[in-house]
């Protein structure tokens, strides 16, 4: 699990072009979309949906669940663990 979280952080930095971030700067429970966290926006949410499908083969069927799944690296990793093929 901790390996997956580190991998996720690296993929988020690369995919979302988070130039000012290192993997070590992101805590597992940092909010992804709030200013006190990574301050991502709706385009980033789309990027994460694409990343989940491309990298882990997981399709987000119910967009309403997106808010809970994308709260933090921890919630994303939990979702991937439960659903990856």
């Amino acid at each position, binding site marked *: 699990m901790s390996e997956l979280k580190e991998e996720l952080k690296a993929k988020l930095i690369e*995919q*979302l*072009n*988070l*130039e*000012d971030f290192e993997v070590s700067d992101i805590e597992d429970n940092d909010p992804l979309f709030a200013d006190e966290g990574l*301050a991502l926006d709706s*385009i980033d949410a*789309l*990027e994460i949906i*694409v990343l989940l*499908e*491309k990298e882990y083969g997981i399709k987000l069927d119910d967009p309403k669940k997106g808010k809970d799944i994308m709260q933090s690296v921890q919630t994303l990793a939990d979702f991937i663990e439960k659903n990856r093929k």
Partner: protein
Amino acid sequence: MDIYIKSSDAISAQLSFEKGLPEYFESGEESFYNCVKPEYKKYISPKLLRRMSPIIRNGVACSLSVLKQAGIEQPDAIVVGTALGCLRDTTSFLTQLIEEKEELPNPTHFIQSTHNTIAGQIALLLKCHNYNFTFSQMHNSFETALLDAQMLILDGKASNVLVGGVDEMSETTYDLIKGLDCYKGTKPGEGAGFFVLSREESVVKFEGVRIINSDKVDFEKELKDMGLELDEVDLVIGGNNQEDEAGYMDFCSVIGNKPYLWYKPFVGEYGTASSFAMWMACKVIEEQKVPECWMKNRIASEKYNKVLIYNKVGNEHSLMLMTKNKV
């Protein structure tokens, strides 16, 4: 009605941004020119910057610089010329489409692959809902934007117009274009040149632009139509790339022995390269001096009050005229 150039700036392969005409050249040993990167964070927040490809960064930073110089927060119009638009985003988007078998393209590259992304991003940053237009007319893209800006002011629809030209060059684009006729013997490049055209009086006066699409140009007639007496021209800036380039010989024979500057051997050829020439003209008129390294024929003048710019790529020609305002 007179039109003035209230402010100008250029991001190029030379140290031009926020500066005057450089007195020496940055070495250009690559097969094509890329811009010297300015400190983008001075103009664009890191949050927005991370999603912008180089062409958008250059266009936005250059625009914000000229608006700041002119003391304008909201221009009445934003008009941008770009020949090939956001090539890096387009390349990434198309490559992903092919690699992913037309599934799961990256949304950011898709959103930003359109030509009007730069003008759109400028408007978003300024929260400017005014006239916003992008022209793509290959090597006359900047001139077309300039003509539109001029007409907006002359028609009384705008007092201050942000106008510019921007293009980018990547490895992929270079590989695709290096065999094309129009770029033969030419080092491709990239850059952004932006200006605030205004009704408000300032040092540089914009006299006009002529766009000609033809294999042959009657220069005497064109210059006459611009109301220009050749004797009055103090300086010419030409789009030549090589010594004695055939396409420029006709033009040179008409203008005779005038001080002549060139720039494409030092910033490269790109669709909106003439925006760099217009920035050069503004700087020369403002500073009344020409660094020797830009001179093609080593003829100097005591004054630089009337500057004529000629650009030609294939059958696409343009003439632009700028003068020093009598203030």
